[in-house]
């Protein structure tokens, strides 16, 4: 139980903020989108592929507002 209490205390003091659904105006802004600039996205993909042999498997569906 002391471990659980410590864990709760650490979580509470970690500085993580829970953004409520109605507080996501800034996150929903177009400038927060990772794919807003197609050229920059292609460059990044090319860099990941050539430097790290990584391709695909990135991004998630939906916008920053987390609606629906």
């Amino acid at each position, binding site marked *: *139980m*002391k471990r*659980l*209490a410590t864990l*709760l205390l650490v979580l509470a003091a970690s500085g993580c903020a829970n953004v*409520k*659904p*109605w*507080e*996501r*105006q800034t996150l*929903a*802004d177009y400038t927060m989108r990772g794919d807003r600039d197609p050229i920059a996205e292609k460059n990044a993909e090319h860099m990941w592929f050539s430097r790290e042999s990584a391709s695909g498997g990135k991004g998630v569906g939906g*916008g920053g*507002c*987390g*609606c*629906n």
Partner: protein
Amino acid sequence: MSLNKAVLALALLAVAATSQLKVGDAFPSLADSKLEGQLPADLAGKIVIVDFWASWCSPCKASFPVLNELHQQYADKGVVILGVNVDEKRADMDGFLKQHPATFTIVRDAEKKLVARANINTMPTSFILDATGKVRFVHNGFHGDTTKKQYITEIDELLKAK
């Protein structure tokens, strides 16, 4: 208080803080929520749809034509639709309403008091209240025709029971 009880109390508080208003709950008083805008004067005894929306929420945009239709169809039958805006700035709400006019009542929860008490899980969220002010149906998000059909079935059910 023992450590066990303190941890349990904290856990219960955390659960309470994350739970949305549910079916059967009494909806918080609209009059005491310091909403900007004019509430309809005669809400008592009416079926009220309270819809939380914002200008930055795409599904909210899609929901407006449906809410306008429902307003046109049911306003005479004692159904009130109340759009509660939660934008940070009033100008954002006004800009949205110029592009997507609403025929139903719009108010603004500038202090976020009402939305915090409803503690909604997603945007948009709407609550259908019966004539006594109790939550009878909840819609999390807006899913086009599916949501529209649900609204109609639920409103008709409440009107029959009236």
